[in-house]
């Protein structure tokens, strides 16, 4: 279980507090208006922001660990592929940041690329890939890190609806087969419907306890109705 215990973040006038748990084997969508603090929560968990309070994984605090030492991998909004590296090298970074991979590690990279449908594209540069293929490469890197907590910061935002749903389904399938915790920031309730087991609403610097997706969307609370513009 991933626990955010008395977490407090202050950035100027903005204040975020969180006291919430996320169970393994669950995909949780964080939904809320812009500036509510969704991405900040991911940044705190990933170790990019320091915050008061504690982040615990399986009961152990990880708050003082460096980002690369945490059991966390993150998929950034814009895929964050290095344009000067090949697809294979971009994915290989997950195993060795120096890119000096053993033959065994290279085999893992190739297998991962094959599993996300990028077989035969190993030597291409990101610019030679379509948007969907770039997302697959970023996802391959994320999955190859093989860490138990996966953070998705508005994933696949640049993709069309069909491709986006396909990618979310792929994340769900690959991520949950190993009982991981998946947190996904999104603006779109449709994303939650496709990929999330539960929804945690984030509003005015507070994060609510997650509730089942269907329950939240069928009977949206006041904040969500306001956000979706269905408040009449």
């Amino acid at each position: 279980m991933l626990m955010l215990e008395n977490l407090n973040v202050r950035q100027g006038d903005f204040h975020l507090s969180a006291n919430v748990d996320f169970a393994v084997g669950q995909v949780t969508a964080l939904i809320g208006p812009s500036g509510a603090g969704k991405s900040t929560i991911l940044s705190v968990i990933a170790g990019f922001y320091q915050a008061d309070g504690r982040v615990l994984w399986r009961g152990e605090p990880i708050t003082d660990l460096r980002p690369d030492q945490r059991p966390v991998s993150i998929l950034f909004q814009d895929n964050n592929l290095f344009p000067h590296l090949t697809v294979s090298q971009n994915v290989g970074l997950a195993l060795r940041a120096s890119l000096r991979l053993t033959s065994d590690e290279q085999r893992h990279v190739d297998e991962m690329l094959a599993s996300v449908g990028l077989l035969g594209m190993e030597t291409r540069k990101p610019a030679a890939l379509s948007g969907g293929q770039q997302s697959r490469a970023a996802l391959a890197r994320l999955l190859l890190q093989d860490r138990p907590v996966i953070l998705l910061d508005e994933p696949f935002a640049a993709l069309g609806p069909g491709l986006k749903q396909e990618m979310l389904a792929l994340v769900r399938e690959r991520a949950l087969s190993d009982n991981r915790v998946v947190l996904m920031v999104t603006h779109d309730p449709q994303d939650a419907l496709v990929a999330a087991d539960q929804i945690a609403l984030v509003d005015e610097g507070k994060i609510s306890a997650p509730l089942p997706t269907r329950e939240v969307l069928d009977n949206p609370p006041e904040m969500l109705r306001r956000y979706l513009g269905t408040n009449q």
Partner: protein
Amino acid sequence: MVIALVLVLTLGTLLAVLWRAEGVGGLGRAEWAAVRFTVLQAILSAAASVVLAIPVARALSRRRFPGRSVLITLLGAPFILPVIVAVMGLLAVFGRNGLLNDAIALAGGDRISIYGLGGVVLAHVFFNLPLAVRMILQGWIAIPSERFRLVVSLGASVSTMLERPMLRAVLPGAFMAIFLICLTSFAVALVLGGGPKATTVELAIYQAVRFDFDLGRAALLAAVQFGLSIIAALAAWFITVPEGFGAGLDRVMPRWDGATLWARLCDVVAIAFAAAFLILPLSMVILKGVIGLSDLPVSVLPAIARSVSVAAVSTALTIAAAVLLSMRGGRAVGLASALPLAASSLVVGTGLFVVVQPVFNPAKLALLVTALMNALMALPFALRVIAPAFERVEADYGRLADSIGMTGWARVRIAVLPRIRKPLGFAAGLAAALSMGDLGVIALFATSDQQTLPLLMYQLMGSYRADAASGAALVLLGLSLCAFWIFDRGGRVDADA
């Protein structure tokens, strides 16, 4: 480490000069005259550059014509042009036996002299008019097309509503930047100035050390020069150029205000003036240089070798320092960007001279010190290009690198260097070209067997070997442009692949 070296070389050398001065007297008449001339020529140069640049920038902003992009590229050339070469070109056009005086003589008039205040200002305008045009052109381009449409639809004046406010915002910054550059100008004053009425502080320092060996006077002048530069740098710091006129869609739009015959005429004259002012001297350098190549002395070859070696060492030092400082970021970058601009190379050179001289013959270290000085002087320009590129890479990939534990050399090698190749190549090109053409500290230290190509060229000019000097000027021009091209091109090849 790097920042400590910058501090030692700038402030430390100034203190060394003061310490060794053995009694710094007050400013005498000659020193005051140098201060007055320095400030006066800098004000006139900056004012003339900025005033002349306004119509040129306006014409470039509202006209599309064949060769426009070539002219804009050419506007960047004076920055990497060796000062002594440009002065040679200006002499060929405006000098006593230049094209202009020939034309005046043909018309029955008296020949005019380029030497003195007029010549110094003319040369500074040649170097800085392009800079002023580029700065002001940026201001014009930054006005969104929507603002022009709005003003025209309201029936208001483009000049009153848009251009004057933009110029009010941009001109002070442009003026101060050029004023600062002209304040520390040495080579121009060395060739075109001189004499009690046309001596800059920098030139006076050179004369005090080289001819009189009067360290007290040199120290005093060095302190004065540093003070002047600091005041000007602080003023330039506070006069910032605003971001622009808000967001627009960056559409190419017709300029209704430029459609009149008068406006067209003004623009044609402005563009023709700028093109002629830049191209004529350069063409003369090439023309006379080709003729003078056969008169080059044998000593040109070792001079070339020394210039290339100094430029190579200086470029390596500049880039290493800029990369290390950019990795560190923060105040170090700001400090290293400002201090060398305030400290002229002659001030630093004098400081090193007095430190080294008691224990070592400074002449033996002339080339090494020159390379070090050139690196120091190029550092602010290199940092201005490299540091923002570093910041962009960190902003784009820093979190990813953190999350996968990419640190140290691996981070630099994999994430940073490939992404900053272009600015790195450009900065290296700048550093190499600036060093190749430098005629500053080398003039202070070097003996006759240690000439770099600019110094050899200056000595050929001084001994009235005009053809040989022209040939050397062409070689130096070629070397400087080649050095810039090689590095800049090297940075661009496959940079986006």
